[in-house]
């Protein structure tokens, strides 16, 4: 699975609710780094949702978070 290029993706539908469970997040930054549209940013030791409207619901952040700490609610 390769990450789609940010400029090539089209956003469709409503902005999802991206939930970060801060108690579980260990700040590894895997989710932020591989997000194709830079929705997520690291803030010291936890990830922050900074641009939810740019989310393309690719689910890569949720799939790769080793800590069950991020969920993308699409409906």
């Amino acid at each position: 699975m390769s990450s789609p290029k940010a400029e090539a993706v089209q956003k469709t539908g409503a902005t999802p609710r991206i939930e970060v469970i801060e108690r579980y997040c260990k700040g590894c930054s895997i989710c932020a780094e591989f997000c194709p549209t830079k929705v997520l940013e690291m803030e010291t030791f936890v990830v922050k949702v900074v641009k939810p409207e740019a989310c393309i619901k690719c689910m890569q952040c949720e799939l790769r978070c080793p800590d069950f700490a991020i969920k993308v609610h699409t409906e």
Partner: protein
Amino acid sequence: MAYDYEKSIRPGKLPHIWCPGCGHGIVMKGLIRAMDSCGLEKNNTALVSGIGCASRLPGYVDMCTLHTAHGRAAAFATGVKMAKPEMTVICLGGDGDGTAIGGNHFIHACRRNIDMTYVIMNNFIYGMTGGQFSPCTPTGMKASTTPYGNPDPTFDISKLAIGAGATFVARTTAFHATQIDKLIAEGIKHKGMAVIEVLDDCPTTYGRRNKFRSVVDMMKKLKENAVPVQAASKMTAEQLQGKFLTGVLYKEDKPEYIEQYAKVIAKAQGQAS
């Protein structure tokens, strides 16, 4: 939709013990998705592990679980499968557990072609005990016991499994999250010994010592060096230098051990009467 992992996790067990960025958590999520897609149920599924960071995985998952002695997962799992052939048996563990102290059990489970799935998390190191080299540490890389670089040649777990007789062998990485569940599910459905090698990351004891800048750096290496087995056939030996193949590497139908053993029982009972 956000995936519901919590239904498969024992209450109160999160956050788990693994270090920030440790790929074992990614494998655990993949395993849960695979078990869901196969419709596995708690009372009919056994997760069996040895000792190590990877081997802690069954402690989190709400299935029948067995956390055994170092390297002995395959032996205990064989016992479970023999006693309860109707159960789905999944072994889980690390490269050290499965190919160093447990190498013997591993190859003989493969040889028997017993109907189980073995998910081996290969992070190239003994993570739990502070980073000693394992049979899977690449030559030249550093471990606490090889501070000048590892002089040993390296085990290729998938090739080892094929050579020993496993009838389904596949490889993926912690980066390729969706492939983890697909391959584990295929392994579960396969009748016989299925080995799924997941190339994994241990930022704490392997990454730091080997000058990876971060766990993201380790993930990028897994991404860059993975070559799907279909693509490899069109590449030259030079292009494949330093790469590894991913996907289903081997699949064969061969007599399965439990069925063969049942025939022995039937024969022996026939003679007795």
